[in-house]
């Protein structure tokens, strides 16, 4: 099976884009959980990562939400950071010049409330040295549509994707929101609109009540739920979406170790992102690279690509293996 050389972990996350998004390995640090990369420099060897995604950047500087912004939940956490960031201009001055001297690909996560703002940010990133790709966070309210979240609607998600695609040739990842009832419809729409890859899942909206003070605990009232608690939902969505689209899928949601990571690959993810786990186990992403390689070798696979989607028979056959009604509805 293998010719003695170690299994190939590399992956191109933008196969239909000439600019490519080739990663040495499929382990990516997730947006909002890795700052701008430098924060973890003293703790792990950041350069060994497949890639990392920046904190979400917005058109203008944002100071974020009031405190408290995070609260632990059973096997998970809620966050309502409120996209604290220096804004696209401040960001461009500071980080891409630093990243240019790094070897690890840096992906910029962008958030906005209008289609024009998404496009304007993307245009500024297009020829920016140090930027390897863009991840569009569509889990934001669309001001023009009364605040209905872009990511909940296939049409709105596609509109954002198209607008960004029109102004940049950079590899483009669209990050889906699990709040969408029909996640496959959104995935298909953004694929058709020019996404080079699809990442999922972003957080689910949750709330914790502070019983003592009789009000929601987070200053923002609600926050995004992440961590192991949401993993089964994430794996299910990756399984569905990977079967439906041709572009690579990047899976995330609650990955805490090798077995979790393998669940996502087997479900159809070409790469994975690690978010919340980095907070509790910063060494995990680097360890995973080694563990993935060892596991592939042990199981006789020549590359990571060989295990992508093999838990889904339809995926393996190349036909779209939609889940039946009872399967999707849960039962």
């Amino acid at each position, binding site marked *: 099976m293998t010719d003695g050389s170690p299994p190939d972990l590399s992956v191109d996350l933008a196969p239909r884009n000439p600019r490519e998004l080739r990663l040495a390995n499929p382990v990516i640090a997730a947006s909002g959980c890795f700052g701008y990369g430098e924060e*973890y420099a003293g703790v792990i060897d950041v350069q060994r990562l497949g890639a990392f995604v920046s904190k979400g950047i917005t058109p203008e500087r944002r100071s974020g939400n009031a405190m408290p912004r995070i609260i632990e939940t*059973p096997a998970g956490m809620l966050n309502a950071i409120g996209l604290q960031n220096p804004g696209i201009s401040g960001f461009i001055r500071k980080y891409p010049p630093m990243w240019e001297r790094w070897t690890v690909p840096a992906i910029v996560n962008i958030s906005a409330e209008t289609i024009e703002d998404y496009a304007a940010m993307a245009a500024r990133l297009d020829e920016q040295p140090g930027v390897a790709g863009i991840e569009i966070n569509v889990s934001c309210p669309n001001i023009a549509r009364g605040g209905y979240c872009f990511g909940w609607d296939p049409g709105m998600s596609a509109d954002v994707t198209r607008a960004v695609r029109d102004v940049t040739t950079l590899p483009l990842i669209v990050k889906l929101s699990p709040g969408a009832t029909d996640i496959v419809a959104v995935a298909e729409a953004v694929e058709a609109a020019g996404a080079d890859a699809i990442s999922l899942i972003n957080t689910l909206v949750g709330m914790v009540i502070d019983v003592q003070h009789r009000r929601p605990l987070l200053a923002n009232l609600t926050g995004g739920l992440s961590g192991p608690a949401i993993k089964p939902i994430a794996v299910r969505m990756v399984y569905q979406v990977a079967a439906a689209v041709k572009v690579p899928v990047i899976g995330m949601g609650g990955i805490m170790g090798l077995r979790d990571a393998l669940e996502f690959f087997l479900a159809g993810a070409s790469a994975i992102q690690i978010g919340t786990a980095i907070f509790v186990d910063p060494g995990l992403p680097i360890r995973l690279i080694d563990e993935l390689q060892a596991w592939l070798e042990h199981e006789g696979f020549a590359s990571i690509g060989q295990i992508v989607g093999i838990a889904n028979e339809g995926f393996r056959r190349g036909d779209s293996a939609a889940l039946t009604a009872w399967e999707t509805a849960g039962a």
Partner: protein
Amino acid sequence: MEMGHESGSSREFEGQILAIDPIMGDSLLLTVSAPPAIVQRLRPGQFFNIRCRFPSAYDPLLRRPFSVYRVDVERSALIFLVRPYGRGSAWLADRVVGDRVGLLGPLGNAFTFSPRTQRVLMVAGGVGVAPLVMLSDEAVAKGMDVVFIMGAADESGLLASSELAGSVEFVAATDDGSRGHRGLAPDMTADYVPWADQIFACGPEPMYRTLRAVVDPLRVNRKPPVQISVERGMACGLGACLGCVVETRHGMVASCVKGPVFDLDEVIL
């Protein structure tokens, strides 16, 4: 900024519990082994993010920050003061000697003495006493005069004065008056404000508001300066998640990196 392309200097490690000693009622002092380089360079006020669960059980998920109470250079160990309060600290308090715990650190900035400081006032509320013990040790070693005010709910929550160097003047305050003055620690500070070159405080957030109300009328040109250690829920401890921010005159800053020690005049509480 240049980054190590080789394997970075890891601040994540496992320590072994070398000793567990009761202190302050139901709290414990946990002596945990750590690399000598870390123990020797540790500054008072810094903290560690400690994993408070078995590695394979994901609830409670997040690490918990704990200040260093003291270091034991000879045994190459860190000493933590743990109050069994909620789920994480209770797990930690349930360990036995020989167990291993996951540590991330040292994290955060430290309390700092000004070059000409000779007289220092410590104001501790409850487990907030932890970093001030190490700071007092250092002040005494530097030949400073130390007054240590400590407040607790009742007598059992007070630090035994024997935990501090003999030269330290220990002033106790309890909510119920069971020992020392009846009242809050900040209420005891007034007498010492004019005397002190610097004030260092650690306790719950409401204590700082009281402290400000007490000391502000007594200070001249914001002197003596007051350093406080703030307590925020944390996730990463490294400035990455922005979940632990403190509002300062210069915006929202991560208390795990730019803090936990802040100048009282800088923060908006």
